[in-house]
């Protein structure tokens, strides 16, 4: 630490950004994952303005059609266009997973950083509580919550979100604990800044990268969880299209209309794969020290 000049002055903002962009474009996982994620997001947003067919349009005459020029992914047993349903379903998956990540971040990060700042009994209690939530398999607690409060997208969000809280608390705590002993934190303490101010001004900006990577991972897990819940009938309710529900409806038609199951499943796989690649890429780009073999 030099005596002249501010302690560990951050590089100018624009310089940082350009550096990041250059590195990101050279990372294959980031580029492919980012591209897939962008396409899925564009489909979801695009569905507000245009879909090839109306998803609420029941057309018995054209039911269970195989994929064709008219119906790209075929139609379901009500004659609804599967491609359009996948587009609208993307909205649903993204919204549920995104809000669930939001719940995890908004509650988990303050808890985790508080535990790191206070240490001692507060830390111990929070971490034990974390362990407890971890002991409930995510799927099981989601089933229990939706069973109690009734099925539906909102309860699915809450169920998935609750599981995200300890994940973010743990990651935030671990990352913050590594920052606290650093010189610039000591400098801030000497300057008379309080615990909360240090956390907001110095800890959070320094752990944001790690949290962003975790958020990407939780986002993809959220999409899988939503699909699972909707599949067993506890998530998004009809007539609103959801990828998991489409798979449930496809199950009994497997022998004569396998396309009903193939396309929604592929949508889930591609979306989750894209997000996982994006997360891996982000981790490599943002902090090479974090690079680990998953």
């Amino acid at each position, binding site marked *: 630490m030099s005596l002249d000049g501010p302690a560990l002055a951050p590089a100018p903002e624009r310089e940082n950004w350009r550096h990041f962009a250059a590195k990101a474009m050279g990372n294959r996982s980031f580029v492919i994952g980012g591209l897939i994620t962008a396409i899925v997001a564009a489909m979801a947003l695009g569905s507000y303005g245009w879909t090839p067919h109306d998803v609420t349009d029941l057309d018995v005459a054209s039911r269970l059609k195989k994929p064709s020029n008219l119906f790209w992914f075929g139609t379901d047993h009500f004659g609804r266009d599967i491609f359009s349903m996948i587009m609208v379903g993307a909205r649903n998956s993204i919204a549920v997973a995104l809000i669930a990540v939001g719940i995890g971040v908004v509650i988990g990060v303050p808890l985790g950083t508080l535990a790191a700042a206070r240490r001692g009994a507060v830390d111990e209690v929070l971490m034990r509580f974390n362990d407890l939530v971890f002991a409930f398999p995510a799927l099981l607690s989601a089933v229990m919550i939706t069973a109690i409060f009734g099925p539906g997208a909102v309860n699915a969000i809450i169920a998935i979100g609750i599981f995200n809280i300890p994940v973010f608390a743990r990651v935030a705590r671990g990352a913050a604990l590594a920052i606290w002993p650093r010189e610039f934190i000591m400098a801030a303490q000497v300057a008379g800044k309080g615990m909360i101010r240090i956390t907001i001004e110095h800890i959070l900006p320094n752990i944001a990268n790690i949290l962003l990577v975790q958020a990407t991972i939780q986002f993809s897990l959220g999409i899988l969880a939503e699909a699972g819940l909707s599949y067993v009938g506890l998530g998004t309710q009809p007539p609103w299209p959801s990828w998991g529900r489409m*798979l449930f409806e496809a199950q009994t038609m497997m022998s004569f209309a396998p396309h009903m199951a193939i396309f929604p499943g592929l949508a889930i796989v591609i979306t989750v794969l894209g997000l996982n690649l994006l997360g891996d890429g982000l981790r490599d780009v943002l902090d090479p020290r974090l690079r680990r073999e998953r």
Partner: protein
Amino acid sequence: MAYFLVRRLGSLIITLGVATVVIFAVLEIVPGDPALMMLGVNANEENLAALREQMGLHLPPTTRYWNWVSGLIVGDFGTSYTYSVPVAELIGERLWVSLPLAVLALLLSTVIAIPVGAFAAARRGRGGDAGVMGLTQLGIAIPNFWFALLLVYVFAITFRVVPAGGFPGWQAGFWTALTSLVLPAIALALPQAAILSRVTRSALLETLGEDYIRTARAKGLSRSAVLWRHALTNALIPVFTILGLQFAFLLAGTIIIENVFYLPGLGRLIFQAITQRDLIVVESVVVLLVATVIVINFIVDIAYAWVDPRLRAGSR
């Protein structure tokens, strides 16, 4: 070690205790009166009151919690509201489907993942490694119930080599019963195998960088002897930790997979119980699964400390 054991045992009991309180409290706030559920909306007040008393619903929550937990300890899970049979009996029956399924899936995933992970680690940075890692990325992204549907389509509908669903029961013969668990087990095992191969690979890469590996190579051992005998045995510790965790997730994962294959296991039981508001069954299944997770984590922790003395000293 004794001190470590006592402390971990203490925290195990506390965690189990808190978990039961949480589960009890959550189900306490569920809307709907089980007595009303059983007798229907036309039941008269007198019968309802009598049934509530018989079910112990008139007691204060603390008493009911205490009765429930002390029952759990001796294996008495109470009586199902809808089936009027002991819950322990219901669970015991279903466990004979879910448990073998989870065990089979765990075996499959281990048998696939360890060689695959070792293969990738041995070819680090080369084509084989990249190919395997790409496949595992895909494996992680595939929802197991969708994979299950595809398996049904290929092996049960197209080739007709295994049944598409249902379970004949173990009394129908060991192999007959086992064949109906094969597809569900594969579906459950695939994503877990993908995760486990990645763990195996990275654990192996870490041990391959150790000094004793260089020594083993220097004294003239072949690459494969070093990999399989020296590196793998040491890399297995983190692999077993993940295995322990995965068993719990597999048990929970059976909840969804059983619905794909119409298997009469714990998963089907819990969904039936949910729709029938048979809360005591829901409560018991959840407690059982959560306790399994907690106990497995405990065993893994102990095993870990037993193998690696450095861990006993740390706070965790």
